[in-house]
């Protein structure tokens, strides 16, 4: 009986703790958003963070996008060949990239490339008491450091996802049309016939904005909430990548269920 009681109270403790964390994280994010006016007052801070989160992620995004497109084109061609409709490979590559792979894979790459770096930077600033020093000098660290990082991530993510999808389509074009020899006209015209601007491209952009917001919010929060030791920062970085990946995949399911079901 006592064992049962302790187990129940452990469960209760866990629930309260996780709700507490959720509350702390939400108030933290609201505080960051409330300090966002600095992004307009001092745009050079935002530009620096977009350089950090966006420009430095360009290489990995371009290369992975290209390879994902190459693989999709190759696999799609091999499967469609059996049904004699290899012209549809353009549709397959474009739809899977624009709707799913573009936003999701670039968000995962973004979390591991930029999100982890954001967490590490804020965590080390906290460990070395730079954040406290700023407060001593009456500089608000939320406004000076965290808000620009958050918005830099939010703004970079849709651009990265679009670049990823575009590179993927180019990769699919290269492998199927240039290398294998699928008809170029069929490739593009079938793609254009089935990719709808509102239904597919705009929904993909909405997805990438949501993912960018989620990943950036998780990254800055984990950095700020990290235990100020070397081990604490390393754990925070790991948590950023794991939580971001889970959040992106779960959100993707929810968004897909709303966007791409029903009449079409």
């Amino acid at each position, binding site marked *: 009986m006592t064992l049962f009681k302790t187990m129940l109270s452990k469960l209760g403790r866990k629930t309260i703790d996780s709700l507490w964390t959720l509350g702390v994280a939400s108030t933290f994010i609201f505080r960051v958003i409330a300090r966002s006016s600095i992004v307009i007052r001092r745009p*050079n801070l935002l530009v620096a963070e*977009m350089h950090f989160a966006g420009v430095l992620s*360009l290489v990995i995004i371009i290369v992975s996008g290209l390879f994902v497109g190459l693989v999709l084109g190759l696999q799609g061609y091999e499967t469609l060949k059996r049904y004699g409709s290899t012209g549809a490979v353009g549709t397959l590559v474009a739809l899977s990239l624009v709707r799913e792979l573009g936003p999701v894979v670039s968000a995962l790459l973004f979390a591991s490339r930029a999100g982890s770096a954001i967490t590490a930077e804020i965590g080390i600033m906290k460990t070395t008491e730079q954040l406290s020093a700023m407060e001593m000098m009456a500089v608000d660290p939320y406004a000076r450091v965290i808000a620009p990082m958050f918005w830099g991530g939010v703004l970079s993510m849709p651009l990265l996802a679009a670049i990823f*999808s*575009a590179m993927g389509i180019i990769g699919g074009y290269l492998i199927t049309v240039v290398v294998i020899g699928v008809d170029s006209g069929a490739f593009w015209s079938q793609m254009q016939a089935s990719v709808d601007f509102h239904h597919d491209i705009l929904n993909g952009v909405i997805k990438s904005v949501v993912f960018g917001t989620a990943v950036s919010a998780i990254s800055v929060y984990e950095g700020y909430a990290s235990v100020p030791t070397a081990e604490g920062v390393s754990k925070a970085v790991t948590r950023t990548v794991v939580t971001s990946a889970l959040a992106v995949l779960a959100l993707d399911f929810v968004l897909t269920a709303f966007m791409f079901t029903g009449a079409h």
Partner: protein
Amino acid sequence: MERSVIDLWVGIFVALGIAALLFLALKAGNVDSIIKSEGYLVSAEFDNIGGLKAKAPVKSAGVIVGRVDNVSFSNQSLRAVVKLNLDKQFQFPKDSSASILTSGLLGDQFVGIDPGGALENLQDGDRVRITQSAIVLEKVIGQFLYGKMSEKNGD
């Protein structure tokens, strides 16, 4: 890094991102779908629409002239009512007929319009009088088998 270098790189990044979006919208996507062209609604009643769905193309002479707006069921006539959204630039005579066709043997279904000879054109809200239902493969096969069997019994 120097401020101007960072500015330049972020500028390149944003330009690349916008270029990628434009590429997706213009090259991969359907340019026509961005600008929703003005259309007019015409309804048609069918005995059986088979697997026709909203957004299916409406074709005349093989050219896409519109999309199926929605599919519903009429309680009065007990038939399927299909609303067709036709592009304003394509006008059809009032006595045109609509039929539900299939692209290829197993392809998607679409609505085909055969122009008639009337002098007046179809207007917004008009109804297409002459319609031909979808061919349901099961029914055709069933009739064929039934015909074969009665043929044998007749011998």
